[in-house]
């Protein structure tokens, strides 16, 4: 692989560290896939998520830099803490970073925001 095409060791380390930090904060599992999808991006990302060790407790972030597609898939257990609205907010933050060409920064920011949102304790009393 010629230099400058994939991630450098430093960038890989950055993403690994961001994943570990997100898992520590939220107690859920995070996974990041960067690359093209075979077939349609949505179903492909769902299949990637289903292939994880414990899909119910996992969040998959799929980024296709060439096609400029971002997919975030959350498992059924994660969904209780991480609403789709919160995921959408994180996606917007990632979008703006990606649009500036900051791939690694966008992934790190998205992971941080997703884990923060997932870590918020659920309000069990609706009538406050």
């Amino acid at each position, binding site marked *: 692989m010629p230099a400058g095409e994939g991630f450098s*060791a430093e960038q890989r380390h950055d993403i690994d560290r961001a994943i570990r930090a997100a898992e520590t904060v939220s107690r859920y599992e995070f996974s990041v896939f960067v690359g093209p999808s075979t077939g349609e991006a949505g179903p492909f990302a769902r299949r990637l998520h289903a292939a994880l060790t414990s899909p119910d407790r996992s969040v998959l972030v799929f980024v296709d830099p060439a096609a400029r597609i971002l997919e975030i898939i959350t498992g059924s257990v994660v969904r209780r803490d991480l609403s789709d609205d919160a995921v959408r907010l994180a996606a917007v933050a990632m979008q703006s970073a990606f649009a*500036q060409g900051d791939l690694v920064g966008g992934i790190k920011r998205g992971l941080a925001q997703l884990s923060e949102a997932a870590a918020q304790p659920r309000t069990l009393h609706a009538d406050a």
Partner: protein
Amino acid sequence: MTEATDAASTSKVRNGYPACVITHPTRTARRLLTVVSATLVVVLAPVAAQAAVPDAWDDPPKVSGLDFLLVLFLIPLGIALVISVLAALPSMIGDKGYEPGQSWRSQPEWFGGPRQGVEATDGTDARALEGEQGGTSARW
């Protein structure tokens, strides 16, 4: 008067210009002379200076043509080459990774994924999780 017109007509015939255009056939020769004399002065002046070493001085050491080349050209060129290589080295060996604006031509990378990589998706049935998965999709 007639001589003047004659001269004008002959020059017109010779150079193809109308008679009113004054040409200077000697200009090229003069230019050539200037160049040759300037070259001679530049080339021969050191010889003349060398010849003028006073008797009381020590004899200047003999410098062979090879030494002259070595000291004045090869060593400076060598130093310049080494410095340029040193300057270009970091960008040649440094793996800068993915840079903004590049298209992604590398292998897909899966952080925190199963060990088999993308092949692991072959056995999975995403439909089993249909309706349970949440999330969003976006483009930029």
